[in-house]
């Protein structure tokens, strides 16, 4: 248990040191999001931008996810 605590403290220090290289919290670099926010309503007509992203701009991910959800339950019945 002491070994676990030491490992976790070391991991905390290393991870916080690595996360300093990200942009500061609240000011991200938005290169793709600008295009999606500007062109979301004219291209799809949906007011909810997140729904327009997951169902129109990136529909393949949602398609694969629905198939995986179905496949994981399809083996239940004898």
């Amino acid at each position, binding site marked *: 248990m002491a070994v676990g605590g030491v490992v976790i403290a070391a991991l905390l220090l290393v991870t916080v040191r690595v996360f300093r290289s990200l942009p500061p919290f609240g000011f991200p670099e938005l290169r793709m999001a600008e295009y999606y926010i500007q062109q979301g*309503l004219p291209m*799809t*007509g*949906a*007011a*909810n931008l*997140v*729904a*327009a992203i*997951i*169902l*129109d701009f990136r*529909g*393949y991910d*949602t*398609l694969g996810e*629905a*198939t995986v*959800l*179905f496949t994981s*339950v399809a083996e*239940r*019945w004898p």
Partner: protein
Amino acid sequence: MTLIVKRISQLMAPSIFLLGIYVVLHGHLTPGGGFAGGVLIAGAFVLLILAFGSEESRNVVLEWRATASESIGLFLFWFLAVLGLMQGGIFFLNTIAKTRPGLPFHLFSAGIIPLCNVAIGMEVAATLFSVFLCLAIFKMRETP
């Protein structure tokens, strides 16, 4: 469960079901969409089974409806994707928004997105409900 719990859950379950359908159908205008609405719809049925116990609901529940609606939901989603291929030449094209665009911020707008939300809501609700049925009522185990 006591009589009060059974009666209150009988009164609350249609309201929860209606709220789930509202969240699914307005997925392109308000936050929510297919996944959150599907979980709410499954919650309405799970509430009823929890209130009445597994012995009484073993005779009443029809499990073939859950599996049928789950398969129909996924098939509808794939059909909408292939519809874009047939009419536009691109897989998963938003054909209804190109030919019949509605006014923004109205219920009838954004082409293929509300239909996809309905299909996903149906599938997620049936999946969660069937998993709950399988574990709680029929008591199936993973390893025989």
